[in-house]
């Protein structure tokens, strides 16, 4: 029988199982007596083995079978669930993931699986581990003391299994992601066309046409929302990596960490989700490596020895908030300023002007790092600027709050979708261009009298803050504007933690734009995030201001 038609389904389902297994392994480490998680892990390995066997992927069967056997020993009380078991299971997850990659790319597997299987079969936990962590012994004991229940599934596990089958049979279908991309593209084209109809309606001054366009707009908004919902993927599609990366960093730095994740069910656009893995991994690694103190230091400060890192995802209307909060040592704005001055990133005078919030944002300047020791875990101070740039590219913002001694929280605010955005349209010379509204704090029409010259810089006052002026024309290499009436239109944005006024020739208002990628060769152009067609057919580029400045 030709099984190739089932390959894609096998791959996506297997990867879902792997994700669940990895999550449950990490969760079980924190509560090793969780009976339903032990059962679910066993079932996950068992199902994976069954699927691989029906597709005749022998290597996957060998690995999944060994994992299932190991879990059976845990389930039957013959083996306590400890760090050693967790390591082996996670190694198995990685091994199967690599094997699936081979299956997907239709290449013969070169990964040896026998050695892994043999290690699992003969695994005996090292006795000294228990001696190191006496507090874990009572937690592990109930697992060992429940062999009688092992042969029958626990009621909770039964209920969970029933829930799973209901979901599977609940009228869902699997759809290729290209089809969803195509749907959002068509919706985007319709949004562009709606703008065109609006322009024609204004020219013709026809009430009937305007009514029809207005109705179309409402339907289009509903269609867009529905298409977006279809494209949303739950945050948990990427969250298992974070649990594992926190675990790995904690282990490497010898710290004990509780990792909590909330909002795993919150949906984000596939395009946004894919771009979040690296930035969030970096923030989490930083939190564990630099944020959380070691056990002794924490106890001296009256904190529990085990540190806490929370990753929470929530939705606020059309934006997603992702917060990484730790209960570690926190950051001191003043020491951030001193470090930035010492490194020559800002002058002492500039440092004095910074608010505490701005001082914390100094960590996003390239080359900034206040870590006393550079470690191989969270890099060499080159990370937070890249994180900030990646979030800005997604149309999001990054905010830092910190209380010395209490911990730090970093919040990312992201759009639900990166396909359709609101942008401020501006005119610079002969060119119209767009700036996503998330990068625009406000627009100002400034009289020349309000401009002060400080050294070589031109500044103006806004909310009791002295803000430097830059010319967007000049940044873009265009002729400078004239402003015969003495009024300079500008928008205020943030660059490197400081507010900046960007002078343009004209502010043309806010527009809803369907963002398109520019493809080769313009894709690699610095400071350009994409392009869009306006209602009258005119094409504009969408600027990435943080990359330009």
């Amino acid at each position, binding site marked *: 029988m030709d099984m190739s038609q089932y390959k894609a389904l096998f791959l996506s389902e297997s990867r879902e199982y792997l994700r669940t297994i990895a999550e449950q392994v990490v969760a079980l480490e924190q509560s090793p007596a969780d009976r339903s998680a032990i059962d679910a892990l066993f079932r996950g390995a068992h199902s994976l083995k069954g699927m691989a066997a029906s597709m005749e992927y022998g290597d996957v069967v060998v690995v999944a079978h060994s994992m299932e056997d190991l879990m059976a020993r845990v389930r039957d009380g013959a083996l306590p669930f400890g760090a050693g078991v967790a390591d082996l299971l996670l190694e198995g997850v990685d091994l199967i993931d690599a094997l699936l990659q081979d299956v997907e790319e239709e290449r013969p597997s070169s990964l040896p699986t026998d050695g892994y299987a043999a290690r699992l079969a003969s695994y005996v936990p090292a006795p000294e581990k228990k001696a190191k962590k006496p507090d874990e012994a009572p937690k592990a004991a109930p697992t060992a003391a429940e062999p009688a229940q092992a042969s029958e599934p626990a009621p909770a596990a039964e209920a969970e299994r029933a829930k799973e089958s209901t979901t599977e049979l609940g009228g869902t279908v699997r759809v290729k992601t290209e089809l969803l991309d195509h749907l959002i*593209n068509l919706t985007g*084209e319709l949004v562009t066309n709606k703008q065109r109809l609006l322009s024609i309606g204004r020219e013709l001054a026809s009430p009937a046409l305007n009514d029809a366009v207005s109705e179309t707009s409402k339907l289009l908004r509903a269609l867009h929302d529905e298409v977006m919902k279809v494209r949303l993927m739950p945050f948990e599609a990427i969250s298992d990596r974070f649990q594992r990366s926190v675990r790995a960093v904690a282990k490497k730095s010898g710290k004990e960490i509780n990792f909590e994740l909330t909002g795993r069910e919150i949906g984000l656009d596939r395009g946004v989700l894919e771009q979040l893995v690296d930035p969030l991994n970096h923030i989490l690694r930083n939190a564990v490596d630099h944020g959380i103190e070691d056990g002794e230091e924490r106890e001296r400060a009256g904190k529990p020895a085990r540190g806490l890192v929370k990753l929470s995802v929530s939705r606020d209307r059309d934006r997603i908030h992702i917060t990484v909060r730790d209960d570690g040592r926190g950051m001191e704005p003043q020491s951030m300023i001193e470090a930035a001055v010492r490194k020559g990133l800002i002058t002492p005078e500039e440092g004095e002007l910074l608010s505490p919030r701005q001082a914390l944002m100094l960590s996003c300047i390239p080359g900034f790092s206040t870590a006393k020791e550079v470690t191989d875990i969270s890099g060499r101070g080159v990370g937070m600027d890249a994180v900030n740039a990646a979030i800005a590219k997604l149309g999001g913002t990054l905010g830092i709050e910190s209380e010395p001694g209490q911990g730090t929280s970093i919040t990312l605010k992201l759009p639900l979708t990166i396909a359709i955005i609101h942008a401020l349209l501006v005119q*610079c*010379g*002969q*060119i*119209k*261009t767009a700036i996503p509204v998330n990068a625009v704090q406000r627009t100002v029409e400034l009289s020349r009298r309000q*401009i002060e010259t400080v050294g*070589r*810089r*031109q500044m103006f006052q806004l909310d009791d803050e002295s803000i*430097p*002026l*830059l*010319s967007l*024309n*000049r*940044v*873009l*290499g*265009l002729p*400078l*504007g*004239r*402003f015969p009436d003495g009024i*300079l239109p500008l928008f205020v944005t943030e660059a490197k933690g400081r507010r900046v006024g960007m*002078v343009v020739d004209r502010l043309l208002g806010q527009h809803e734009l369907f963002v*398109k990628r*520019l*493809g*080769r*060769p*313009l894709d*690699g*152009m*610095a*400071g*350009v995030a994409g*392009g*869009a*067609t306006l209602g009258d*057919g*005119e*094409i*504009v*580029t969408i600027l990435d201001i943080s990359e*330009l*400045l």
Partner: protein
Amino acid sequence: MTAERLLVFSVGRELFALNLTEVCEVMEPQQSYPFAGAPPYYLGLINFHGNLTALLDFAQYLGAGSRPLPGKLLVIDTKLAHLALKVDAVGSIIDAQSITGATRSEEPLIEALLETPQGNLRLVRLETLLSSLEDDLRAAAPKSAPGGN
């Protein structure tokens, strides 16, 4: 020479050719919209069936100087790039069999100099053109500058 069929076009009194599979459409000139931060041989962006496509004045790019001709637009296959070349004129499609002689060119952009009944052709190496355009864009990246207007 691997291409089976070539599209012949002219720029600044010279004949060029592209592998036909690399071109998806020949169009009449259409309105383009300028954008900032790119070298001057970019005429702007055009809308090609919904794809935002960079329009390159190929004569200016080659340093041959623009000729006062309406010209034609060669749209590169959208799977390879979002790029259209403005050329002076588009000639015929020729079979590889009609090539009577080929010599290597020392210019990186030109894959070979071909002798054909239509005349001598310069076969453009598209990947080199795209990489070179990308390098130029990186070199032309806008720089931040202090001061108001």
